[in-house]
C-alpha cells in the first residue's frame, strides 16, 4: 500500500530531564487516514503525539532532538512559527477541556484569534463545525450557555468542533474516549470515521479493540521505542515482532 505523508518524524528523541521518553523514532504518518498509536501506559504514546504540535514545550525540562516534518517543514526549526503549526492540528485531550466561556465562544475562539471578526461568518462557522461534531442538535437552543454545563461526552464533541473550527488538516487525539461512557465514546469514534476522508487523524489509545475498529494504520510503541508500524490489518493479524504479538495477545501490558 502506498501512502502520502503529512507528518513525518526523523530520529525524534525526547527527554524529560534524565528520562528518555522517546528514542529515535522515525515514521511517516499516512495522509487522510486514521493512525493509532498503541502501547502500554508510559511507553511514550502521548509524548510522541504532543511532539507533533510542539505542545511539549509548555511543560518544563523537555529537550527534543531530531525533526518533525509537517508539510515538509521542520517544526523544530528555530524560525518555525509555533502558532501557525499548532493551527494546522486540532487536539482532543484525554479529559475534555472546554474553555471558560459559552458554547458558541468556545467554537469561535480559534477563528477569532486568527482574525475572523464577521458576525455572520462566525455564526456560520460555529453551526457548521457543531454539526460536523454532531453536537448542533443538542445545543442549538443554548449556544450562550457556559460550556461547563454540557455533559462530559458533549464537552468532548465540543472540543472536537472547536479544534476543527481553525481548519486544521490534522486531528491529534490523546485517548479521547478514556473519560467517556460507552455511548459517548461511540459518538466520538463515529465522528472519526466520518472525518477521516478529509483529515489526517492520529489517535493515541490503550484500548486495542478501539485501535482495531478505527485505525487504518498502527504504530506500536514500547518503552519509548517504535517497535512496529504498518497497516492495521498486518500489525494485528500478522505482527512481525514478538513484542507486538505479546502485547496484542495481552501478555504484556
Amino acid at each position, binding site marked *: 500500500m502506498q501512502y502520502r505523508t503529512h507528518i513525518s518524524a526523523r530520529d525524534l528523541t525526547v527527554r524529560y530531564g534524565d528520562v528518555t521518553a522517546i528514542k529515535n523514532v522515525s515514521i511517516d504518518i499516512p495522509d487522510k487516514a486514521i493512525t493509532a498509536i498503541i502501547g502500554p501506559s508510559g511507553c511514550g504514546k502521548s509524548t510522541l503525539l504532543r511532539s507533533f*504540535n510542539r505542545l511539549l514545550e509548555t511543560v518544563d525540562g523537555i529537550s527534543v532532538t531530531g525533526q518533525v516534518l509537517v508539510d515538509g517543514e521542520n517544526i523544530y526549526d528555530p524560525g518555525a512559527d509555533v502558532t*501557525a503549526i*499548532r493551527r494546522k492540528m486540532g487536539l482532543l*485531550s484525554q479529559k475534555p*477541556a472546554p474553555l*471558560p466561556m459559552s458554547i458558541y465562544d468556545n467554537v469561535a475562539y*480559534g477563528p477569532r*484569534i486568527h482574525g475572523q471578526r464577521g458576525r455572520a461568518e462566525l455564526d456560520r462557522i460555529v453551526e457548521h463545525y457543531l454539526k460536523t461534531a454532531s453536537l448542533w442538535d443538542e445545543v442549538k437552543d443554548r449556544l450562550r450557555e457556559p460550556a461547563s454545563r454540557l455533559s462530559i461526552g458533549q464537552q468532548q464533541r465540543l*472540543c472536537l468542533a472547536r*479544534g476543527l473550527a481553525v481548519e486544521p488538516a490534522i486531528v491529534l487525539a490523546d485517548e479521547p474516549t478514556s473519560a467517556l461512557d460507552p455511548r459517548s465514546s461511540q459518538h466520538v469514534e463515529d465522528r472519526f470515521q466520518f472525518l477521516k476522508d478529509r483529515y489526517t487523524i492520529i489517535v493515541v489509545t490503550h484500548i486495542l479493540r478501539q485501535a482495531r475498529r478505527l485505525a487504518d494504520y498502527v504504530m506500536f510503541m514500547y518503552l519509548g521505542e517504535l517497535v512496529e508500524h504498518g497497516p492495521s490489518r498486518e500489525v494485528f493479524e500478522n505482527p512481525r515482532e514478538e513484542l507486538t504479538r505479546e502485547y496484542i495477545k495481552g501478555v504484556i501490558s
Partner: protein
Amino acid sequence: MNARRIEETVARILMYAATFSVLCCLVLIVGTVLVRGLPALTLDMITHTPEGGYYIGRGGGVLNAILGSLFLTAGATVIAIVISLPVALYINVYARRGSRLASLARLALDVLWGVPSIVYGAFGFLLMMAFGMRASMLGGMITVAVLVFPVMARGMDEVIRMVPHELMEASYALGATRFETAFKVVVRQALPGILSAVLIAFGRGIGDAASVLFTAGFTDSLPFSLLEPAATLPLAIFFQLGSPLPEVQARAYASALILTGLILVISLAVRFLTRRYSRQTIS
C-alpha cells in the same frame, strides 16, 4: 486513656475559646462604632464639608474625606491592577516553572507585603520631595498603590496558579499565543479570585492612615484636583478622635461607621459581580 481524654477536652475548650474570641472582637468593634457613632451620624456628616470651627464642634461633615478616600483609593486600586495583573500573569503563564525570576518576584512581593504602611508613607514623601511635589491626591494615590499592590499581586498569583494546565494547553493547541491565552482564558477562569484580590487590596488601601498622612495631606475642601491635597477618612477619624471635645470624638466614631459602611457596600457589590462573572468558570 484518661490523660488523653483530658487533653482532648482541654484542646477543645481552648479552640472553642479562640474561635469565640474572634467573633467577640468583631461584635465589640462593630458594636462600639455603632453605639458611639450612630447618634452623631447626621445627614450633614455625609453631605457637607467641614465648616469653620468644625473641629471644635461647629457644623459640617466629612464629605471631603468620604470623596477623598473613594477617589484616592479607586485611583490607587487601578494603578495597582495595572502592575499586579502583569506580574501575576508573568509568574504563572510566561515564566518557566522553577524560574529564578518568578520565585524572586514572589519573595519580593511577600517582603513588600510585610513592610509597615508608615514606611511606604515616608518613602513616598521622600520621593515626592525629590520631585519637588507637595502633598497631593496623586502622591497619595501612588503611595497607596505601592502599599496595596503586593497584596493584590500575591492574591492574583494564588488564584491564577490554580488554573488547570489543560485549559492553557487547549488554548495553545488552537494556535493562541501566550498573550491571548493569558487574557482570554486564564484571566477569565480566575476572574472571581482576581476580583476578590482587588477587593482585599481596596479594603487595605481605604483603611490606611499612615501612608497618606504625608503624601496626600489633608484639606477641608472637596478633592477635585489630583495635584491638590485630599482628605481621607482614616485621617479624619484620627484628627477628630484627638480632640478633647466629646461631640467631636463622637463624630470620629460616626466617620468610622461611614468607612466601615463603605467597605461593606463595596464588598457586597464585588461579591455580586463575582457571582455574575463566575458563570463561565470551569470547575
